[in-house]
């Protein structure tokens, strides 16, 4: 893991490997960004959840099993809100095209997976995917009132 933070400019960066055991480091990173931005505990939890789901998605699917890969996370805080950019050099994959989850189904019919990207969409105001220069780039934005 490498981390570079600059509180003066409201910009942060973190690199993790494709190992879900590194998620607690992402959590500490998001907590720091949210604290700087002045978010309350509920909003901070929501940002943690969105980032965890998006990053776990990359850790799980971007690279072939058993190979090492990286996921870069950057954050930016300004007057309009928070912006997170998640990028990786794995296979092209657009998570925003996944089908919506039907949250009204009874337990017997609910699928065990598929909630990750659904939660990212719920938590964020905008979710944008692009594939550029061999990288998947997912941009998450959250507007905040300041």
């Amino acid at each position, binding site marked *: 893991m490498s981390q570079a933070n600059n509180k003066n400019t409201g910009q942060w960066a973190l690199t993790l490997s494709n190992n879900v055991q590194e*998620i607690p480091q992402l959590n500490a990173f998001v907590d720091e960004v949210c604290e700087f931005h002045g978010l309350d505990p509920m909003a901070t939890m929501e940002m943690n959840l969105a980032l965890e789901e998006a990053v776990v998605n990359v850790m799980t699917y971007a690279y072939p099993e058993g190979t090492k890969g990286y996921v870069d996370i950057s954050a930016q805080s300004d007057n309009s809100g928070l912006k997170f950019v998640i990028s990786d050099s794995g296979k092209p994959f657009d998570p925003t095209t996944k089908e919506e989850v039907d949250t009204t189904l009874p337990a017997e019919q609910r699928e065990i997976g598929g909630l990750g990207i659904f*939660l990212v969409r719920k938590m964020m105001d905008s979710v944008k995917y692009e594939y550029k220069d061999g990288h998947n780039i997912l941009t998450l934005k959250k507007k905040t009132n300041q």
Partner: protein
Amino acid sequence: MKTTFEEKDGKYVMHFEGRLDTAASVQTEQEMKVLHNCEGHDIILDCAQLEYISSSGLRLFLALLKVAKAKGSKVSISGMNDNLRQVFAMTGFTHLFEFL
């Protein structure tokens, strides 16, 4: 993340403590297996000390619910904080479980 299992008044009770994120869910999945042998026992998931849950944790709860329902056991959740309630509401999990 820590779990504790006990049998209380004929019910299987599991206490959850800490953050149930994707990193913790691997170990927690193993620890929850004892609940899958629930024939004749209702289940209570005590979440009073659970601070956070992501979809990996929700998946474990849903998997348990499916098994328990098929065996005729009820699964109830007690003591959730506001953050967890919010996640359960957003994902429709509020309709799936009973809450104490």
